[in-house]
């Protein structure tokens, strides 16, 4: 028994210590310096196939909507951002990417028009009368639609989107300006930092595209956020709060990585500070594998639709870890990106068929986030983001 225990202990130490070398991606496997990597192309091929085959798309979207209606919408946003970056990285892909982007944006606008913005909200947001601000609107939907239009227009101008995008931006900024914390509702009396920072990023894109200037508004927004929206123990932005600025949820991994990324277009220093804090409070590695917690150690919340199934003891969240890929890529954190992609190779259960790649442990929105993390950079740089947005290359 002693000999067996000793042999097993030594073997475990050797194997577990070396396991990450087997799963660590090769240089350029996920993020290539110029053109999209093979992984990016495989993920994009899977998504484009979904958008050209109505049955497959309907099945995939239905699968997600059964759990979370938001994912249907967010999957569109991240896919559009990913395709826009692919088009900018490889001009040969521009035509097919723009065709897909237009199909996604047009269909999203059609759904919003026919079924209302609440179609993309969780059931507790379906009662429009519960929204405090009138007429009821969700900055979750407005912000991300504007972001999609902005991404499309930054790749190549589309005159049909110019007016609708400007209208949306003007409405959003006016509504945000009317709140004491310069944020608008995503849900009734519930403002999410994810959505409001996405709206800010879209506004910045509009400034670049349309020659408007919201720099003063951005300065006020950051100053207000620093004063009212920071959780004191961690220094991280609250993930949600009411219109008056009273916090609903503390900092969350499923919000902060996206918020920091969007803030790169607004205030690079503030964005980097938020990323560094998120990395310290939420980013973890174990035996060379990276993951992200949904909550800081000092603030534990319940596992919910945003966090996904949280791994006990470690507190690892699939949503937070997926979005951390985007954060690490955006802030040129090659070490963390490498650790996270090692985890993705280990526990994402990739499935590759006919040049199409997807992760079985993920879903459409998760795969879209992964795709975006593999190509992000050129779009943000075009929108006036810092050079570091060119991003991590493990």
């Amino acid at each position: 028994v002693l000999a067996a225990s000793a042999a097993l202990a030594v073997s475990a130490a050797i194997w577990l210590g070396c396991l990450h070398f087997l799963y660590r991606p090769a240089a350029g496997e996920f993020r290539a310096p110029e053109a999209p990597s093979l992984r990016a192309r495989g993920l994009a091929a899977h998504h484009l196939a979904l958008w050209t085959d109505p049955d497959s798309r309907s099945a995939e979207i239905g699968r997600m909507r059964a759990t979370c209606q938001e994912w249907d919408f967010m999957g569109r946003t991240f896919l559009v951002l990913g395709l826009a970056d692919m088009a900018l990285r490889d001009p040969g892909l521009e035509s097919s990417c723009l065709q897909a982007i237009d199909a996604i944006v047009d269909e999203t606008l059609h759904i919003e028009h026919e079924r209302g913005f609440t179609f993309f909200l969780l059931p507790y947001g379906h009662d429009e009368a519960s929204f405090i601000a009138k007429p009821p609107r969700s900055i979750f939907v407005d912000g991300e639609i504007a972001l999609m239009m902005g991404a499309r227009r930054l790749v190549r101008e589309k005159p049909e989107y110019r007016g609708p995008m400007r209208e949306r931006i003007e409405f959003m900024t006016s509504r945000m300006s009317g709140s004491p914390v310069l944020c608008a509702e995503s849900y009734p009396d519930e403002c999410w930092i994810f959505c409001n920072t996405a709206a800010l990023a879209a506004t910045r894109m509009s400034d670049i595209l349309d020659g408007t200037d919201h720099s003063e508004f951005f300065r006020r927004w950051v100053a207000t956020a620093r004063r009212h929206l920071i959780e004191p123990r961690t220094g991280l932005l609250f993930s949600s709060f009411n219109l008056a600025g009273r916090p609903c949820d503390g900092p969350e991994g499923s919000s902060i990585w996206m918020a920091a990324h969007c803030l790169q277009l607004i205030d690079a220093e503030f964005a980097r500070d938020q990323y560094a804090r998120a990395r310290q409070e939420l980013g973890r590695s174990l035996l060379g594998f990276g993951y992200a917690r949904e909550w800081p150690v000092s603030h534990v919340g319940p596992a919910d639709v945003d966090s996904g199934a949280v791994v006990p003891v470690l507190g690892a969240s699939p949503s937070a870890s997926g979005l951390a890929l985007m954060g690490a890529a955006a802030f040129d954190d090659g070490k963390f990106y490498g650790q996270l992609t090692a985890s993705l190779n280990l526990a994402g259960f990739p499935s590759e068929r006919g040049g199409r790649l997807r992760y079985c442990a993920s879903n459409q929105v998760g795969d879209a986030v992964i795709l975006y993390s593999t190509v992000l950079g050129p779009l943000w740089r075009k929108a006036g983001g810092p050079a570091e947005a060119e991003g991590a290359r493990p």
Partner: protein
Amino acid sequence: VKRPVWLRLLLPERVLSPLGLLTRAGVLVLAFLVLHACGLREYTTLVTGTAPGGGRVTESAVMLAIAYVAGYAGAVAAAPIMALAALLWAAGLLLLGRERPAGPAQS
């Protein structure tokens, strides 16, 4: 009761022997390959709270996902550790010259 030959080869009675560890490592890998061949990889989407076929997440789907992840952990982590331990142990025994690595036990 005399165990059939295939069972003695597959699972030697002496678990705590190099060959015992090695064969059990093989069994773990085999078990995972069976789960994989049955298409249970698709059930890992439950990690995100998404049901593989749409609709609500059922208990049976959760059990299948757990079975696949456990099988995967067995094949990726436990089996290599056991195989490596078997090799180290066998090497140790040879070096010490105390005895040869034990084969399948005779019933």
